[in-house]
């Protein structure tokens, strides 16, 4: 046998030791077979979470719709859950959600995309490497801190200029939410813009176009689906944001378009009702789930759309 030739070298014969150990290996053989199944079980926890979310939200929401007709819920403009004759129209909440989201996007959209243009097209490597992480700090600040900032600083600031604005209003949290979303849009749009191949830019530069013209006529059109995808994700984030609006926009369930007034969003409603310790089984308890299911569908659609757009963008390059 080939193995016996080097016995002269050393007392240790590794080959024999390995052969020896191998006999005891049945246990590790078992591990080897068991591991993939075990990992599959762990991986399915994420699936279970999704299933859990869907089942919890929708079974309880269905209970709710047995009491309050689904039609009434989605067309009702009056929300009076605590009243003697409660009414459960979700439109005030959807309205509040959309208005705060709209205000936020009015800030985050333009500022985010202009930051992205600067970072991707104008800034030098060194400047970008300083500015980008700084901007991302904004995304790491907990939303409760933004809520505090909106309530104790931005609202008083707005009121000192426009005294007719309420102590709680939708404008201030909307603006602050916008600031919070800037880094998200800036960073995702920048990724999209910087992955536009340089050859396309060079084509425009060679014709004597300025950077500005190249950006607007070549880079942005080429990166459009990526940029839109970042907007959609920003919207989804704003729709789901909770603490800023809960703190700074109060809890009046007005159905109005006056941004100086207090309005409630879907998320803030969930906080209010669940903190109020609604007894399980009551209509108001079930309404939590109907609102949450609505919110869930809103954000899910947005996320699917965003992913579709960004995949389309990736396919193009």
């Amino acid at each position: 046998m080939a193995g016996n030739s080097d016995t002269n070298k050393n007392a240790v014969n590794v080959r024999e030791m390995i052969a020896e150990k191998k006999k005891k290996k049945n246990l590790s053989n078992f591990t080897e077979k068991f591991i993939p199944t075990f990992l599959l079980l762990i991986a399915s926890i994420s699936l279970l979470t999704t299933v859990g979310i869907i089942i919890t939200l929708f079974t309880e929401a269905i209970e709710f719709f047995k009491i309050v007709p689904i039609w009434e819920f989605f067309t009702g403009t009056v929300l009076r859950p605590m009243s003697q004759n409660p009414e459960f129209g979700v439109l005030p909440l959807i309205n509040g959600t959309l208005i705060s989201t709209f205000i936020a996007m009015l800030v985050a959209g333009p500022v985010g995309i202009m930051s992205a243009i600067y970072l991707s097209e104008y800034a030098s490597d060194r400047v970008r490497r300083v500015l980008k992480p700084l901007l991302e700090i904004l995304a790491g600040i907990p939303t409760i801190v933004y809520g505090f900032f909106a309530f104790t600083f931005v609202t008083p600031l707005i009121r000192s200029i426009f005294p007719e604005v309420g102590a709680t209003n939708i404008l201030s949290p909307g603006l602050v939410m916008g600031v919070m979303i800037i880094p998200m849009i800036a960073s995702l749009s920048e990724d999209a813009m910087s992955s536009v191949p340089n050859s396309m830019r060079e084509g425009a530069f060679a014709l004597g176009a300025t950077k500005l013209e190249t950006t607007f006529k070549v880079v942005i059109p080429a990166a459009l689906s990526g940029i839109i995808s970042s907007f959609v994700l920003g919207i989804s984030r704003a729709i789901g944001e909770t603490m800023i609006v809960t703190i700074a926009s109060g809890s009046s369930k007005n159905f109005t378009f006056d941004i100086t007034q207090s309005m409630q969003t879907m998320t803030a409603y969930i906080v209010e009702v669940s903190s109020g310790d609604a007894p399980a089984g009551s209509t108001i308890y079930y309404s939590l789930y109907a609102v949450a299911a609505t919110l869930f569908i809103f954000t899910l659609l947005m996320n699917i759309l965003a992913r579709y757009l960004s995949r389309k963008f990736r396919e193009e390059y």
Partner: protein
Amino acid sequence: MKYVDEAVVEKRMKARIRNNSILKFIFLLSTLFGLVVLAVLLIRVFSQGIAWLDWDFITGRLSTDPDRAGILGAILGTSWLMLVVIPVTLFIGVGTAIYLELYAKPGRFQNFIATNISNLAGVPSIVYGLLGLTIFVRALEFGNVVLAGGLTLSLLVLPIVIVAAQEAIRAVPQFLSEASYGMGATKWQTVKKIILPAALPGILTGSILALSRAIGETAPLTVIGIPALLIPFPGSFFDTFTALPMQIYYWTLDASLVSEYAYLAAATIIVLLVLLFLLNSVAIFIRNKFQQRY
């Protein structure tokens, strides 16, 4: 005849270059806008809170009297939450990532799980709160205790850990696992002894970022029903608790009743931000120190 009138081009060119410079300046201002707000926010919070932040505040118990109030309970509560979140997310997150990257056959099922994870990452945190309320607090009858809060936060940040771990595993060069297989190592030996150690810095960095997200989360905790009352310090996973962001929330809400509460909230925010800053520094340190160049 000439198609291009050079005088006109020259004149337009000046305007175009000027536009370019003006817009460049505006783009720069936009980029700085976010940073200015950040600076205002930080200055504002620090100027309000720093005077209230002392050792007694950090080690004191909760009190309705602003001068005596402290946040030790909240600090302990947050720490207890982390004791749940860290092991649970690491175990499930890394396990899932190993399965997806190294064991699952590429195909529909793998794509399905990946899509599912990216959808979960987009679910609003408040919805996780409702899930936690329904499953952990009510169905499993934990009540509004540390374990219920910790598990809820774990599910919330799990997608972040999974994606970070997947990226870290993918970044381990193939030639390392080849070398290991070439030595006669089994798949699990290769995973355990070569791939995971090499991916560890990336996994830790991602997990710490996920952890800092969990520490600052408020919405799911409000839904689970964290009491604002004076409660004893938590001593186990089955005790009720409060957490730093909850403390900030209640003091901010009540600032219209007792104006000093705003300063207490600001002081608590400072503690929270310092905690997050430390965590992120550790993450950056790990990334720089243990990054292997091949």
